[in-house]
């Protein structure tokens, strides 16, 4: 029988407790929160070592690093929450280079008074998303700000990954003649968030598409190592992302409106909110630009994957000194698909 008495520690009250300033003070309350919440959820050797940094071996070759802050409002939305979103967002940014994401850091800014029960839900959702994605959250930080100086929780994650040999994917590699593919329906995340905003209060069945795309990317890169560009169309949507790539690569693009996959519910919600699905954020979709000859093969690989079932060939790249992204409308006319102007939906991710 164990005769050593357990320490005189009263467990954190995750049912009724709230974040207070001591949780960021560096003292015992903070240590306890880290141990009982973050360490328990993210559990791995690096965190257990309890250092201020994580130490890991590196392989040869090229590594990528990406960082992303998350301020989404509301924190919980249909199809996800800020926790899983903060993992998916950074995993996807790393993966869009063709890399395999390995490690994440997570930094929390908590607002005094935030319910610990909600924080626990968020952290567990992060842990679940990280495990599913096969990445480890190896280091982190927690700060607390006074009530009214934050909005519940802000989370910043940074990710590191390794690019397979022979893969060179970059936004400046789109070439005239290339095909433009998209992995699925557009605008789901933005509309799901919008529907939750209290000022609107309409009911939909639309769920956020938030998902980690690195496995889909791995299959695509395996099939066609010579993919030219990949990017996830988050804020600003498909339109803004394509404009970024067109400018980086110094090319023009032509989309076919009829080929764009948009869910009927999303189209309808956008219709009455006065939004254009092309500009609404996605969190689980990617755009792929590849040689025309590789398009069919890639579409086949994408459609065989759970996250690419509705993949579509939506347009092509051509020479254009003005770097316009244009679209043949379903109507037979032509128009520009311009950069997003102003802010369509604030705090979407």
């Amino acid at each position, binding site marked *: 029988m164990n005769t050593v008495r357990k320490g005189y520690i009263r467990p954190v009250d995750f049912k009724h407790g709230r974040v207070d300033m001591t949780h960021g003070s560096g003292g015992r309350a903070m240590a306890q929160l880290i141990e009982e919440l973050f360490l328990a959820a993210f559990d791995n050797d690096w965190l257990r070592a309890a250092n201020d940094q994580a130490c890991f071996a590196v392989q040869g070759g090229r590594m990528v690093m990406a960082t992303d802050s998350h301020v989404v409002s509301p924190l919980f939305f249909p199809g996800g929450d800020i926790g899983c979103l903060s993992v998916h967002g950074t995993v996807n940014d790393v993966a869009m280079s063709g890399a395999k994401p390995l490690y994440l850091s997570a930094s929390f800014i908590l607002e005094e008074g935030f319910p610990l029960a909600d924080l626990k839900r968020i952290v567990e959702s992060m842990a679940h998303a990280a495990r599913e994605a096969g990445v480890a959250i190896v280091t982190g930080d927690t700060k607390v700000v006074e009530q009214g100086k934050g909005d519940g929780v802000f989370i910043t994650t940074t990710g590191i990954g390794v690019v397979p040999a022979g893969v060179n994917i970059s936004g400046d590699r789109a070439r005239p003649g290339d095909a433009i593919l998209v992995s699925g329906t557009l605008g789901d995340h933005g509309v799901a968030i919008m529907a939750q905003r209290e*000022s*609107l209060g309409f009911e939909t069945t639309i769920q956020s598409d938030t998902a980690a795309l690195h496995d889909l990317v791995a299959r695509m890169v395996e099939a066609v190592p010579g993919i030219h560009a990949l990017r996830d169309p988050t804020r600003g949507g498909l339109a803004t992302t394509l404009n970024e790539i067109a400018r980086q690569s110094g090319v023009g693009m032509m989309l076919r409106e*009829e080929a764009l996959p948009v869910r*009927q519910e999303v*189209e*309808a919600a956008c*219709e009455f909110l006065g939004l254009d699905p092309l500009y609404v954020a996605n969190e689980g979709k990617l755009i792929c630009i590849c040689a025309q000859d590789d398009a069919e093969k890639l579409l086949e690989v994408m459609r065989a994957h759970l996250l690419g079932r509705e993949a579509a060939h939506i347009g092509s790249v051509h020479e254009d000194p*003005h770097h*316009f992204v*244009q679209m043949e*409308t*379903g*109507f*037979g*006319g*032509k*128009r*520009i698909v*311009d950069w997003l*102007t*102003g802010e369509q939906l604030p705090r979407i991710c």
Partner: protein
Amino acid sequence: MKYINEFRDGKTARHIAAAIAAETRADRRYHIMEFCGGHTHAISRYGLSDLLPENIRLIHGPGCPVCVLPIGRIDNAIDLALNRGVILATYGDCLRVPASGGLSLLKAKARGADVRMVYSSADALKLAQDNPDREVVFFAIGFETTTPPTAVALLQAEKLGLKNFSVFCNHVLTPSAIANILESPEVRLHGTVPLDAFIGPAHVSTVIGSQPYEHFAEEYEKPVVIAGFEPLDVMQAILMLVRQLNEGRAEVENEFSRAVTREGNVKAQNLVAEVFELRKSFEWRGLNEVPYSALRIKAKYAAWDAERRYGIEYKSVADNRACECGAILRGLKRPQDCKLFGTVCTPENPMGSCMVSSEGACAAHYTYGRYKDAVGT
């Protein structure tokens, strides 16, 4: 999306386009003004002018609520938000309209003004209910479509005894603007703006009906076809106008019969008549002072009239001298004729109001059609 996609069908569009091409006479030109920004947007977004013969010219009219709002009125709203400590509730389109001193409501917000974007007058009313210790002013703008909801909010406030809510009324009237364009010397005397026919408003007409346009058809001999905001509506209206012009008719026809009647929405009209009365004169951007072209709140509802409550004084402010919004709103110039277009005036940094709202002629051309200007350069 049923009842919407039917009106965006490409195949039908090509049929109508073929009919238009077959019926236009080569020996004349057709100058058609679409009054509403909603039509301007549909024309640009769906690339409709690509489907029309070269001798049909579409002229963008002044029917964009944000575009016709004069700078002085925005200045008034900014003053309320910045210096009077009120919560100013307004439609999203108003936020970026440039005002005096390089300000806009959005920039005023960044300087500490409490400006809230709402989707309806009911949201503004709710803000007042949720913030009983604050004064909430609804910055009401728009044509006859948005006027009845403002009336409803005001009547609700009365019913609820809501004392911290008021309305800064800037509602304007479509028929007065059309009359002003038709009466302008450019159209009437000099003929510098050839104007053969009108595509009549969609949503406005659901409220006021088709009857008010009969005067224009008779008095000025200009055909009017009231059309919905979907691209097929616009195409069909153009075909109907071409036919009227070819046959020498000048009638009011209703393409938007699925929503518009001759009498309009009488209930809504009665609500408006209960709360509002005509202003003697109102300044429009581009059209200057137009007599009896706007509404104000009746004395009976003075308690909810922000103009009375805060003693708002209107001061006219001139546009940037190089800005051609005025001429563009009257159909005298096209966006690409303005020196500022696309250089200093862009959707990110609008100088004139036509670049602000997606319904504005400049924003529509910049966003959807500017590739046509770039060809060959």
